[in-house]
């Protein structure tokens, strides 16, 4: 048990001893086995692999660590082995039964790469693998490296150094100036400049003030924030603390989606450890600053990702948005000034403070600085979570990073922006992935989730799925969204069943316009976007359903046998 650190000196001392222990771990003569455990590898038996490793090494001086996944879901469960005199080597597809032979050095063919700059014994560095070579990891830097449950690991790797810098070397104005200079924009989807938000937060005069982190992530295709909680919760916590210190907030909340038990557990552990070290709570590092950190959990309502709804949910009532203004920075949680940021945004802040805003603004594009975490779903070879500089093209991501389509699947399109934008087709993949480029063709970066679909997915049926999601998740506060989305689903179902008419297409456009123009909150205002995008990109599919009663993909309930006959012709 460590005493609270009550001065900068004490913190520096702790940092030094932590990094000495870190270096000793990697340079020592002990075998270090790191099992990558996160919510997706657990589904594939990572906990059993971890238990098997612990069993094998019981009573020896080998070190078995529980790290988080490095984003490469396609090679899970993965285990990293560092033998004395060798660099750490990452092995993929390890089942519990493989552990003995893996440790005996028999599974060389499952070595994916070396974590480090150079290859070893014919195994190339991990960074040369197509999945990793386009990546630039800032938020994900420590994924798979540190033990997320160990604050000592995190501090050895530099965590809370930026907090100390803000507390002891910078004024609030200087820190905000760095964030502004970095060009960091909100990673939740809206892309609002973080520096401006912080500046208005700092200027707000009402007390107390709050910082709220939006880790709700209710979209059906994004899992990046969950992975930050699992991979490096300290980055989020440090970002929260920096934001609280410079904006003068008394309390910081992290509102986490309730579906993320592992992330919640690891984040709570990080908070408890940081509190014990005196990094949060009263009198942080002896500076006289107090910041209380609280954790709230959601209950599976998509709408709670909307700012005002989220705050109602934190306050323990139904999460339903309210009209704005007042903006939350004037009147948010408990009617006090509230600075609301996305998890990924805050997790990028420590690096910005450490390296300067200028450094961050050089990465990415002119209007979208920095890196972005992106997730993909669909029949691709290397499905996983990546962090690349803004401005990379979709083609690079899909064909390069994510390895292209699996055997037997033909690329049909890629849905962008979750349930809030439209798809792009094969001809449009050269658009840059940033906040602004894709909007001209109806796409959107959103929170960075892409869904690739193949010939088995019918655009009409997909539009129905996306609209039905919005129907189920509508909070029912305002009529255009609450009644409009079910109406759209009804029309789409008519078309899917083969009873649609050309009139229905214009009816859907009119209804969509009502929803877009009249809905109360941002989520309602974009709810029909996927449908409109599908209609724009795949008009022929809609017409085929209406006029020829044919669903080329065979997904809709009309006349499936006829479709099969047509396909065979």
């Amino acid at each position, binding site marked *: 048990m460590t005493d609270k650190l009550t001065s900068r000196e004490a913190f520096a001392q702790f940092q030094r001893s932590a990094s000495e222990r870190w270096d000793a771990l990697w340079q020592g003569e002990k075998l270090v086995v790191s099992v990558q455990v996160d919510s997706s590898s657990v589904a594939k038996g990572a906990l059993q692999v971890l238990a098997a490793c612990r069993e094998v090494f019981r009573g020896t001086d080998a070190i078995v660590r529980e790290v988080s996944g490095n984003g490469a879901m396609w090679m899970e469960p993965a285990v990293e082995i560092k033998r004395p005199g060798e660099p750490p080597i990452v092995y993929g597809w390890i089942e519990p039964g493989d552990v003995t032979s893996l440790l005996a050095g028999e599974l060389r063919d499952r070595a994916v790469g070396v974590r480090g700059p150079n290859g070893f014994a014919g195994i190339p560095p991990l960074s040369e693998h197509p999945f990793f070579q386009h990546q630039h990891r800032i938020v994900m830097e420590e994924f798979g490296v540190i033990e997320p449950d160990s604050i000592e690991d995190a501090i050895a790797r530099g965590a809370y150094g930026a907090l100390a810098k803000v507390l002891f070397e910078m004024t609030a104005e200087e820190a905000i100036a760095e964030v502004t200079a970095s060009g960091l924009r909100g990673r939740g989807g809206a892309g609002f400049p973080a520096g401006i938000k912080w500046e208005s937060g700092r200027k707000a005069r009402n007390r107390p003030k709050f910082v709220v982190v939006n880790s709700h992530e209710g979209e059906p295709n994004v899992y990046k924030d969950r992975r930050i909680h699992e991979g490096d919760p300290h980055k989020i916590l440090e970002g929260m603390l920096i934001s609280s210190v410079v904006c003068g907030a008394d309390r910081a909340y992290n509102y986490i989606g309730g579906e993320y*038990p592992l992330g919640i557990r690891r984040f709570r552990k990080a908070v408890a450890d940081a509190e014990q070290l005196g990094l949060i709570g009263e009198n942080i590092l002896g500076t006289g600053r107090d910041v209380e950190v609280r954790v709230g959990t959601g*209950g599976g309502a998509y709408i709670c990702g909307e700012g005002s709804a989220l705050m109602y949910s934190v306050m323990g009532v139904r*999460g339903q948005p309210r009209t704005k203004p007042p903006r939350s920075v004037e009147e948010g949680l408990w009617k006090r000034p509230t600075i609301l940021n996305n998890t990924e945004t805050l997790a990028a802040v420590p690096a910005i403070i450490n390296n300067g805003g200028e450094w961050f603004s050089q990465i990415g594009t002119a209007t979208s600085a920095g890196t972005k975490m992106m997730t993909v779903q669909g029949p691709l070879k290397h499905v996983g979570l990546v962090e690349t500089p803004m401005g990379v093209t979709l083609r690079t991501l899909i064909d390069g990073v994510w390895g292209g389509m699996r055997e037997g699947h033909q690329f049909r399109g890629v849905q962008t922006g979750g349930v809030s934008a439209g798809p792009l087709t094969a001809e449009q993949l050269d658009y840059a992935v940033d906040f602004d480029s894709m909007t001209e063709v109806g796409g959107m970066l959103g929170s960075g989730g892409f869904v690739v679909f193949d010939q*088995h997915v019918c655009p009409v049926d997909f539009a129905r799925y996306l609209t039905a999601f919005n129907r189920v998740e509508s909070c029912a506060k305002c009529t255009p969204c609450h009644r409009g989305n079910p109406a759209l689903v009804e029309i789409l179902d008519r078309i899917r069943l083969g009873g649609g008419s050309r009139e229905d297409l214009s009816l859907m456009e009119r209804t969509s316009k009502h929803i877009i123009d009249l809905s109360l909150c941002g989520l309602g205002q974009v709810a029909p976007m996927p449908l409109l995008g599908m209609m724009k990109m795949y008009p022929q599919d809609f017409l085929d359903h209406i006029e020829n009663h044919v669903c080329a993909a065979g997904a809709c309930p009309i006349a499936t046998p006829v479709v099969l006959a047509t396909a065979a012709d």
Partner: protein
Amino acid sequence: MEQSSPSVVGQIASDPALENGAHPTGDAIDLAEVRQILAQFHYRDFQEAQELILSALQEINEHYGWVSLPAAEVVAAHFGTTASRIYGLLTFYADFRTEPRGKHFMLLCHGMACYVMGSQRLIQHLEDDWGVADAGTTADGELTVQVVNGCLGVCDRAPICKLDADYIGDLTAEKLNDAIRTAIAGGGSWRDAHHPVVTGSFHDR
């Protein structure tokens, strides 16, 4: 602070069947145990009490698989609010159930990854072959299915479900049938696999 309405509370609590949380499928919620769970959720002021309500409900929902009306009454009393307010939360947030789970519990992922890989067909299959729709339980009380509109986050194995403690990926209708039959034949219930997920102090004090 708001006070719970005594007349309504009294009426419900005085029904012995409801006091035990009894339900046609025979699952019961021990209110003394609920009070024990709630004891972790101590609060210093009104704001903190409000902020803890959802976490407390989640803990109870995780533990029992549902929140009964009497349990909601106990929660309301603990936080000094009304049962209708609690019920409003239970019916708004998708994670909460107001009816007990069957012996086995399946979360069927219907996120976009699973959709593009065919989860819609699986939902239909469960309805056709097992007679169980979203949030429903089979007539024999063996299986409850909840369709997850969000994402279970195991997208490379889509479509995927979580049955009791096990994730089953790359699902087909046959694989789903096998998994359900194996679970039912194996006895036990979702409780055996259940580990409390949210532990430690709340609000981290």
